[in-house]
Each structure stands twice: as structure tokens, then as C-alpha cells.
């Protein structure tokens, strides 16, 4: 898997750099507009965009065909696709907690924000990646766009009811915080594992 991560890094250098710049710009904008708390949620959507870009690059060179003439297993290949999401999840978790502290909210709230920020990119990618793996032919591109759109739309709708969500979170944060955080963590890992297994089945059935 190290090899695949190296390849992603090296063949997408310019893309990742651009993504970093955009993230920094948006983060700066949010900071100046006193909306820093949104930053962790920004991290939630970055993996989705990066996955889409790296997927289209890989389809162009049909890299998987080469990869499976080496000792790379289908499992390794699938797992490497989630690494961006997991990485962003970690970063989001950290940033969520830090920002929560900076904004001087309660520790509980900071933890919740951090945990949710950790869960979001992973869950979103877990939904997105099996579709990416399954549909890499021409019409597949349309499916990916549709999935991305659906995810954004759901997020938008949820965002609309953000007010109610904040109240919900306030309520929840008064409950046993560690239980909540633990449950979110377990559910996230569960969804990740299920998604990876589905991904492996898809790759094993795939022909090149």
C-alpha cells in the first residue's frame, strides 16, 4: 500500500498543491469572517473532491491494469483509496478540537465537533468510493458526478437546518459525552470497514 500512496502523491503533486492553496484561502476567509468553526467541515468535503480528481487521472492511464500485474493485491488497492479520507478525518478531528478550544466553547462541544469532523469525511468517502471503483467506464463519470451532487445536496439540506442541529448538539453534549463520541467513532469505523469490503468485492469481480 505504501507504493500506491507514493504513486498518488507523486502523480497528483500539482492537484494536491492546488487543493492545499484553496483550503488555506477558504480557511483564511472563514477565519476573518468569524466562522472558523466551519473549517473542520470543510475538511469533510475535500476528500470527496480529491478522490474524484485522482480517480479520473487513474482511469486515463488505466493504472489498475498495471497495478495488478505486480504483487499489489485488490485489497491493498482498495484500502489505499480511503487513505485521503482517513487523513483528512484525523486533521479535521484535531482542528475541530483546537478550534473549539480557541472559540472557547465547552470541552464537550469541542469534542463533539472534532468527532463529527472525523466521521464526516470518512463516511462520505465510504459512500463515494465503491461507486468510483464500480463505474470507471465512460458513463461511470456521470454516476460519480451524480453521487457527488447527492452528497453535497444532503449536506446542504442538513446545513439549512443547522440551527436545529446546533440545538441538538447542545442537548446531546449535556449527555454522557464519552458515550456519544464513542458511538460516533464505532459507527464510522463500521461504515468504513463495510465500504472497504464492498470495494474489495467490486475490484475482485472487475476485469481489465
Amino acid at each position, binding site marked *: 500500500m*505504501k*507504493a500506491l500512496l*507514493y*504513486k498518488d502523491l*507523486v*502523480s*497528483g*503533486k*500539482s492537484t494536491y498543491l492546488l487543493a492545499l492553496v484553496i483550503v488555506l484561502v477558504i480557511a483564511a476567509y472563514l477565519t476573518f469572517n468569524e466562522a472558523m468553526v466551519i473549517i473542520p467541515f470543510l475538511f469533510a468535503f475535500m476528500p470527496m473532491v480529491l478522490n474524484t480528481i485522482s480517480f479520473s*487521472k*487513474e482511469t*486515463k*492511464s*488505466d*493504472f*489498475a*491494469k*498495471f497495478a*495488478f*500485474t*505486480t*504483487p*499489489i*493485491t485488490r485489497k491493498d488497492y482498495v484500502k489505499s483509496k480511503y487513505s485521503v479520507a482517513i487523513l483528512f478525518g484525523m486533521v479535521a478531528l484535531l482542528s475541530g478540537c483546537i478550534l473549539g478550544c480557541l472559540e472557547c466553547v465547552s470541552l464537550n462541544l469541542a469534542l463533539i465537533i472534532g468527532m463529527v469532523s472525523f466521521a464526516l469525511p470518512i463516511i462520505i468517502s465510504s459512500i463515494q468510493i465503491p461507486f468510483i471503483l464500480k463505474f470507471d467506464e465512460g458513463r461511470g463519470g456521470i454516476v460519480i458526478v451524480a453521487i457527488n451532487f447527492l452528497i453535497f445536496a444532503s449536506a446542504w439540506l442538513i446545513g439549512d437546518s443547522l440551527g436545529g442541529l446546533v440545538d441538538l448538539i447542545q442537548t446531546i453534549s449535556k449527555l454522557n459525552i464519552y458515550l456519544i463520541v464513542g458511538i460516533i467513532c464505532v459507527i464510522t469505523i463500521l461504515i468504513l470497514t463495510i465500504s472497504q469490503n464492498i470495494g474489495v468485492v467490486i475490484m475482485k*469481480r472487475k*476485469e*481489465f
Partner: protein
Amino acid sequence: MLNNAIEINNLTKSYAGFSLGPLNLNVPMGCLVGYIGENGAGKSTTLKAILGLIHPDSGEIKIFGKNIKEHAPTLMNRIGVVFDTLNIPDEMKIKEVDKFCKLTFDTWEEVTFHHYVTRFNLQGEQKIKALSRGMKMKLSLSIALSHQAELLILDEATSGLDPVVRDEILDILLDFLQDETHTVLISSHILSDLEKAADYIAFLHNGKILFMEEKDMLVERYALCSLDHELIQNLNPDAIVGKRKHAFGQDLLVIRDLMPTCIEMSKPSIEDIMVYIIKGEENAEE
């Protein structure tokens, strides 16, 4: 040369409008086997099935005596593959490909890779997108030769390359075969590559293997001759494998032993054998 590098038993695979098999093919170790046939006959399908890139409808494939389903991917260390395209991202540099392979193959030899890269006049700093088709093939071959592979599989790797490059590649393949535990399976519809140096020729036509034989035997068994329409009547019909009628006579591929000795015959090329056998099949269908 007693062991088989590859054993294919009863391979079948169907797509819409095309079916391959049942196919049986044994590739003996230590040999250069040419896999020939028309475009679309199923050569690539066979090779992909060997490599586990596609799933056969039925049949069993063994490489070095091991079932590929169970032993890939570690088996892939011992197999070098060259396709007609280099499936590596455009933005990668050759030295990055080196690093990638080092992280991927247990048996990667950097020194060997550098040796081939230099020999082929490639540079570590070059990006894939800057390489011509010929250079991409050479890189592909460099990779295939740098992880102690015992079996090389080339799928139409030389199409689109000029004769000088193809000649270079043939030299390298023959070098590779100096070790008698090494085997090469090369599918090509450019037969001049295989003309001289192939040990065996397997001919795939309409999804079935028509023959898999020592190339020398083929060239000795068949002969080309050119006769007028009258003389042909006197021939043993079993002697004629395929013919091309033209305004001034007929060109025939015949079985040497069944021909009268007075008729002038010449040695056929593998291409002649392939073309005339196919003609013979078409004639039979008429």
C-alpha cells in the same frame, strides 16, 4: 525443457459476439513461444486470463505449477508483463516509477533497472508523458526485466514500433532466454519478429488453437508453390492446405511430403502458413 511454465486447461471465456475456447495450451519452460492469430482472435483475452486480469468462465490456469487464483499476487514477482500500452500516470517521472516498483516488488533490482534505462537512452527525470511510444515500450520492458522474472509475457508489445526497435527487443528477449529456466510468451500479429527465433508457434483462430508446434517442424512440413490451373488437378487434394487463385494460376500452401518431388517448392514463412491456413478454412466453408 520438461516443465511447463504455463498450463491452460479447458479455458473458456465468452463476451457478446465472441467466444474463446475450450482452449488448452502448455508453454514449455525455457522456450520462446509465439502466440499468433488474427486481430480479435482472442490472444489478449488468453494472456489476460493467464495474468488474472479477467475471469474465465471455466478452466484452470497454472503458472510454474501453481494455481494463479491462489498464489497471485506473490507469483507476480516472477512474471514480467509488457502490454501494448504503458499504464502509468503521465505525470510520473521514470525515477519515481523506480521508487514505486521498489515499494511494490519484493524482488526489485534497482541496478538492473538503471542499466536498462541507460541502455535505452532514457533518463530518470523524464516524465511518462514526454516519452514516445517506442520509449514507453522500452520502459515497460525495463520494468519487466528488473524484478527477477522467470516468465515474460508480451501482449502485442511490438505493434507500432519500427523494425530497429523490434530488433533490439528481440535481442533482449534472446538474452533473457540464455537462462534455461526463463520462458517468453509473446503474442503478436507482426510475425517477422518470431520468424527466426521462436521455438514454438501457437496459432489461435476463431477462439480455438489450431496448432501449437515447433516452428522448425512447421516450416519443414509445409511448402509454398505456384502452379497453373491444370497441374493442380493432378495433385493429391489432401496435400493442399490453402490456396490463392489469381488470374494466371494459383499460389498454394502444401504439405511437402504429399507432393511430387518434381514440383518446385519454397520454404514458407510463418505468415504464409497463417494466411493460407485461414484461407483453407474459408475455402472449406464455401
